[in-house]
């Protein structure tokens, strides 16, 4: 027996796998042993002997886990960074970031002020990491660029038909969409969001925004008073084992009066900022879903441009939130965008969102559309489902959070782009007045702009999110999906969210998994190669790639936890929820036991692992810029 506190998994003193509860004997002996081992693992080694009597192959080499100032291989390396100043730096070239940039420049031109706006984006080109259904509500766009049609915005497919159904294994039960229900899509457009974002990028460049795709913001910089000073882009030329290569170069620092963080759902810098500024103390934890999407060129006879189809039910059971979308796009060739969303609060560790998606395509009503067609693209991304209850504190000295990063998605409408864009615009407007205010006396070096939150609360975003706040949490009941639909039908349709109560979510998604021994494995059908496909050929279609000789960007705080906890208790759910096959449990070369293999090159930057890992041991950090998927109009 040993007395090791908290997170010890296997004690070097007594070779027992200890789950996180306090055991009672010999505490001090263990902790001393731990301290001794910890001081050792600074130098690089193939096997790390941490808290464990069996050796664990070294997986993580990233400097965020093994700091370089203690690493002998980095002694004497030039670590100075080139720095530049801008007025506003925006992290993330997506709908929110670009709308903010465009709005800033519009205001600057209107008031004849000079304003330097820089946008850094980790994708190699603007739009290459953008993935969404998508059905766009043009409200924010009409406010931002009223003449978008003349300027050639790629909104080519107005919604003509809107269908909603509950699927069972063989049948399809249509559900009427009454006007007033959030999923009514009249007046909206089906878009290829990647192309829309690319167009926004062009508009931004025309206005004089400096766009830097291919450069990831890797670090937040702080002034001495603790306010945000700006960001630093990623270092390049670090080898897979964490040592510097000949081509090593430090990233660059971009300083700004205020930095807008628009990294999209579950951004990695936002994760740090939540801790640093305690932004989540008064809101519920964010809850997420994973969305997988494919683009198909189908038989022309089956093509109905403008048709929007959504479904719930099969193949998910009533207690697993999720559903599908199928949009017929009008862009020249008979193209459909289809996909499947699974709430990440699912409980069965044997569930594989990718395989549920492939299985769903075999439903007779879906297969009839896809038969004779060709799949041309695949991708996946996490999305927010927390809505109103999960919005954190949005402003802190020197910075603001915009877009899906804090999370403004309207879940029953399945739309977040219009609110993301509006949040970017409001951030830009409030930032602009603060920056150009000549009489401003700021207490901190980085500007603190609480007016952004006030502007949001007065805007239509707030009203919209407040009205639908109870729909997603209403699924947490015994009847699951049907309870939720009943609640929506009764309360939302009549009261439009005016009911005085606010339902709560279930807590952290990562805490929802039940141990594998309490759950039944799911039998998934084999992919047939025509309608459903295997994981690796799908990943190849995403065009994802990373420089292979770099530290894996899926870092583990503790390399021994995957086998000791994730595999032992939950049967390794990461090998199932990752839509790109990054995580694999392979047998050890010595024959006894398994090890986790991380195929970082496959990563499509969806962030699901960071969200759903039951041990919360995986920390997704940004890889070298330009790495990641190469989506084209997803």
């Amino acid at each position, binding site marked *: 027996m040993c007395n090791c506190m908290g997170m010890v998994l296997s004690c070097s003193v007594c070779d027992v796998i200890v789950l996180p509860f306090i055991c009672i004997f010999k505490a001090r002996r263990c902790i001393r042993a731990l301290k001794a081992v910890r001081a050792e693992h600074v130098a690089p080694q193939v096997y790390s002997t941490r808290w464990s009597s069996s050796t664990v192959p070294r997986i993580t080499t990233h400097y965020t886990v093994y700091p370089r100032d203690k690493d002998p291989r980095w002694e004497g390396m030039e670590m100075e960074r*080139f720095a*530049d100043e801008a007025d506003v730096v925006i992290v993330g070239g997506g709908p929110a970031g670009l709308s903010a940039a465009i709005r800033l420049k519009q205001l600057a031109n209107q008031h004849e002020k000079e304003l330097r706006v820089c946008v850094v984006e980790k994708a*190699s*080109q603007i*739009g*290459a990491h953008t993935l969404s259904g998508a059905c766009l509500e043009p409200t924010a766009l009409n406010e931002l660029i009223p003449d978008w049609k003349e300027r050639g915005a790629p909104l080519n497919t107005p919604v003509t038909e809107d269908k909603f159904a509950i699927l069972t294994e063989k049948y399809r039960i249509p559900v009427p969409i009454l006007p007033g229900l959030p999923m009514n899509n009249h007046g909206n457009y089906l878009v290829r969001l*990647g*192309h829309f974002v*690319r167009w926004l990028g062009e508009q931004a460049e025309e206005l004089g925004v400096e766009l*830097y795709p291919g*450069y990831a913001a890797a670090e937040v910089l702080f002034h001495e008073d603790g306010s945000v000073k700006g960001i630093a*882009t990623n270092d*390049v*030329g670090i080898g897979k084992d964490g040592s510097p*290569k*000949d*081509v090593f*170069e430090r*990233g*660059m620092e971009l300083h700004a009066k205020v930095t807008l963080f628009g990294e999209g759902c579950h951004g990695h810098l936002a994760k740090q900022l939540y801790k640093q500024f305690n932004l989540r103390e008064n809101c519920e934890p964010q809850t997420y879903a994973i969305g997988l999407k494919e683009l198909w*060129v189908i038989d022309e006879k089956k093509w109905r441009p403008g048709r929007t189809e959504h479904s719930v039910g099969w193949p998910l059971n009533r207690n697993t939130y999720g559903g599908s979308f199928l949009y017929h796009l009008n862009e020249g*060739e008979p193209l459909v965008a289809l996909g499947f969303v699974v709430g990440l609060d699912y409980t069965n560790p044997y569930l594989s969102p990718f395989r549920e998606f492939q299985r769903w395509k075999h439903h007779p009503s879906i297969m009839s559309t896809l038969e004779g067609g060709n799949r*041309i693209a695949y991708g996946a991304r996490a999305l927010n489902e927390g809505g109103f209850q999960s919005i954190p504190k949005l402003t802190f000295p020197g910075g603001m959070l915009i877009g899906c990063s804090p999370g403004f998605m309207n879940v029953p409408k399945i739309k977040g782009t219009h609110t993301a864009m509006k949040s970017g615009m409001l951030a830009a407007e409030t930032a602009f007045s603060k920056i150009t205010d000549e009489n401003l006396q700021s207490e901190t070096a980085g500007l603190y702009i609480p007016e952004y939150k006030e502007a949001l609360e007065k805007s239509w975003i707030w009203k919209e999110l407040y009205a639908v706040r109870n729909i997603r949490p209403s699924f947490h009941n015994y009847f699951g999906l049907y309870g939720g639909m009943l609640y929506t039908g009764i309360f939302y349709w009549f009261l439009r969210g005016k009911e005085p109560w606010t339902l709560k979510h279930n807590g952290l998604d990562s805490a929802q998994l039940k141990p594998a021994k309490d759950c039944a494995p799911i039998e998934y059908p084999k992919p047939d190669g025509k309608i459903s496909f295997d994981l690796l050929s799908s990943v*190849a*279609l995403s*065009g*994802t*790639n990373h420089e292979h000789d770099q530290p894996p960007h899926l870092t583990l705080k503790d390399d021994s936890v995957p086998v000791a906890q994730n595999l032992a208790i939950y049967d390794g759910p990461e090998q199932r929820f990752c839509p790109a096959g990054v995580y694999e449990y392979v047998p050890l070369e010595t024959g006894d036991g398994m090890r986790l293999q991380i195929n970082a090159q496959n990563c499509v930057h969806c962030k699901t692992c960071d969200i759903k890992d039951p041990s919360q041991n995986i920390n997704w950090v940004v890889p070298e810029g330009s790495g990641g998927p*190469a989506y*084209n*109009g997803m």
Partner: protein
Amino acid sequence: MSARVLVGVKRVIDYAVKIRVKPDRTGVVTDGVKHSMNPFCEIAVEEAVKLKEKKLVKEVVAVSCGPQQVQETIRTALAMGADRGIHVEVSGKDYETLGPLQVSKILAALAKKEQADLIILGKQAIDDDCNQTGQMTAALLDWPQRSPEDGTFASEVNIEADKLKVVREIDGGLETIKINLPAVVTADLRLNTPRYATLPNIMKAKKKKIANVKPADLGVDVSSRLEVLKVDEPPQRQAGVKVETVHDLVGKLKEAGRI
């Protein structure tokens, strides 16, 4: 050393992207697809910049032929260390049919115009895999051409007196060749490891000049003598058949008319 180096860079579809044939089978889909600099061209630029850093050449000029988008590729070369760029504007149908012959004519004309002493090109482009432009350019200029790689291991390129010294690894050891300048050199994979185009360099590169030139200004006709009839995907791999005995094998071969 007052030598001037001309480096050709080509914008190609990124090597990790899955190619799709256009529905009308006249080519591949390029609209919106991720493009980047041809990997062999990156190595060529790196070699040229290394020569400049060794003070063996005075100026590195990056050249690319194509529509507006190739300016990004030229900027990347400028960010890696090239001094200025030349964008030869070719767009639309002419760009779709632009091949090694026209490009080598353009490069030859530019080499004369810019009084270049050395042309460094990538060995081949990863989209057409032609491996012809270097050789054709040298022939048009009547200059010697060498690949310091030629399929063997990486080595050095140096300029001594008025000659280009190339060291190649061959089976028996190291081979050193001297060729007269001016010359054309084509770069293969293991010649060097290209540096990253870092953000401060990209920002500086925005201030470097890119001149716009039309092929007609150089006296080059870019019309193609080749016509692409159709483009198809490679045939799907058929599954193999397993047989249990030699008897079955012979039977199957007879069935297929092979014996």
